[in-house]
């Protein structure tokens, strides 16, 4: 298994969105400290963290709604805070769940306003396409105050991607959606990432996003505790064996088996399962089972936050 966990802060220069040493304090109280990370074009980056970890503040900083005490945010190379409003041309975002709209206007009128403020050309066709894509055409001409929570969330996503942004930032995009809606949003986000959009989203639904996110940033206490790159799966194995402590020490000496670790009563390793199994049997260990050890992001997150 190639899942790697890194806390490094080095970042390729081609990041579509990059935060450098972001610090935010309210008075003397630190909310965020030294946040550095980047999202590459075509990458889905999920921000996870318990309530109060600073996710919302970070998203406000990344979208230019709030200003850091120190540090910078660059969007396609442009300084978000000193580059003027033009730096936000590449940005699409929903920073509240549910997304906020003018309740007396219809969904279509709200999107028309967004299109105007985003200086979008040929907006009528694009708005229609977006309404179809988000399955909102039937309610497009109803005032938003009559919309359900899920419809408002989908309209929020429509408003964020209407002008085809290159950087998309979403706060809890699937909050309030039914399973079908969640799956539709995931499809759309994956499709956008495939087209090269850098997607950053905050979420509590780690098992959901681990299906399509490329990287997960774990926030805790205002710090970026970890960045977990979700790579190819199925190359790590877990086995239950008699005398796991001795088996753990033994497997570390077996050629073709590496990164061996002891997890409670199980031994976890990477490399060849056949080589490990044959060596253990040869040495007289009783192997109860051996199975692929899928990376459990949720479990990892729980451990990481608990020890933060």
């Amino acid at each position, binding site marked *: 298994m190639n899942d790697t966990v890194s806390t490094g802060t080095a970042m390729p220069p081609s990041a579509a969105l990059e935060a450098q040493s972001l610090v935010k304090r309210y008075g003397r109280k630190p909310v965020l400290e030294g946040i550095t990370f980047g999202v590459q074009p075509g990458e889905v980056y999920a921000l996870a963290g318990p309530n109060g970890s600073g996710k919302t503040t970070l998203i406000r900083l990344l979208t*230019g*709604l709030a200003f850091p005490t120190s540090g910078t945010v660059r969007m396609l190379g442009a300084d978000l805070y000193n580059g003027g409003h033009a730096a*936000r041309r590449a*940005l699409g975002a929903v920073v509240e769940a549910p997304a*906020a709209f003018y309740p007396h206007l219809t969904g279509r009128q709200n999107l028309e*306003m*967004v299109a105007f403020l985003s200086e979008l050309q040929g907006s009528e066709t694009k708005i229609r396409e977006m309404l179809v894509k988000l399955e909102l055409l039937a309610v497009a001409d109803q005032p938003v105050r009559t919309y359900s929570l899920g419809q408002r969330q989908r309209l929020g996503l429509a408003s964020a991607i209407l002008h085809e942004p290159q950087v998309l930032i979403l706060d809890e995009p699937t909050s309030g959606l039914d399973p079908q809606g969640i799956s539709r949003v995931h499809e759309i986000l994956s499709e956008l990432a495939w087209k090269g959009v850098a997607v950053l989203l905050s979420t509590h639904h780690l098992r959901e996003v681990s299906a399509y996110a490329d990287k997960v940033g774990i926030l805790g206490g205002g710090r970026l505790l970890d960045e977990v790159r979700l790579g190819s799966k199925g190359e790590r194995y877990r086995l239950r064996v008699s005398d796991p402590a001795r088996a753990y020490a033994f497997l570390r000496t077996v050629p073709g088996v590496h990164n061996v670790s002891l997890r409670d009563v199980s031994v976890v390793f990477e490399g060849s399962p056949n080589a490990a199994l044959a060596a253990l049997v040869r040495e007289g260990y009783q192997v109860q089972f051996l199975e692929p050890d899928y990376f459990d992001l949720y479990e990892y997150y729980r451990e990481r936050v608990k020890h933060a």
Partner: protein
Amino acid sequence: MLKILAWEFGKLIRLRSVQIGLAAALLLPFLWAFAPGLRGQYGLELVSGWQVPALVLRTSMEFLFPFLVAIASAEVLGSEVSMGTLKSVLLRPSPRWRLLLAKIAMVLLYPVLLLAVSLLGSLVAGLPFGLGGFFGGTGLGPGDFAGIGYISPGTAFREVLRAHLLAAMVLWPLAALALLFTVIFLSTTSAALAAVSTLFLMRLLVVFPVLKDFLFTSYLNLYVSQQVATGLSLMLIYAVGFAALALLIFERKDI
């Protein structure tokens, strides 16, 4: 910018405080014009419909209109904060100053709208008393209600219109101040409370004669004065100053 102003106007007239304010401005003249205790309270016997606007201005400019302007001006931006739409708008590649400039235009427009509706209500309420020429005064020109002789309908209308324009303009500093407080507190209630408290405080500060000429509350009755240049200049300086400060703060305000 025109499209944004049109949107902002649409939002302005949908605000509950604005609707209540305009309804009050339209209906209150009827209350004052036909109030049975009018003579006892003001020592006034209405002889012409042209005197109703003055009566309404004198009763409303003391507290009601400043209060309505403070509340509505705070709500112009505060409602966007509470609905969450301010964030949505600020995420777009549009400068912050452009949005706030449109809001400033609206809070300055509201007193004009309020006084215009009040004038309309006053004239309609004055119809039973007649709107022709009469011997006496409108209460808003030379000689107060007693006047200086015969006054034609045209002259009466000019006096009433001038007074209402002045009354609207002296409310501009308060409107800009309420918006400035909203930018600072990002809350309708806090901003309105702060603006109304400032209004009360300024009324109390008249006990310091050295300050009196600098308090904008000293000029709330400018509409009856015939010498308006100094007072009006000061009001405009206050309004521009508060608006400029709001723009400056809003540019780097955490939302």
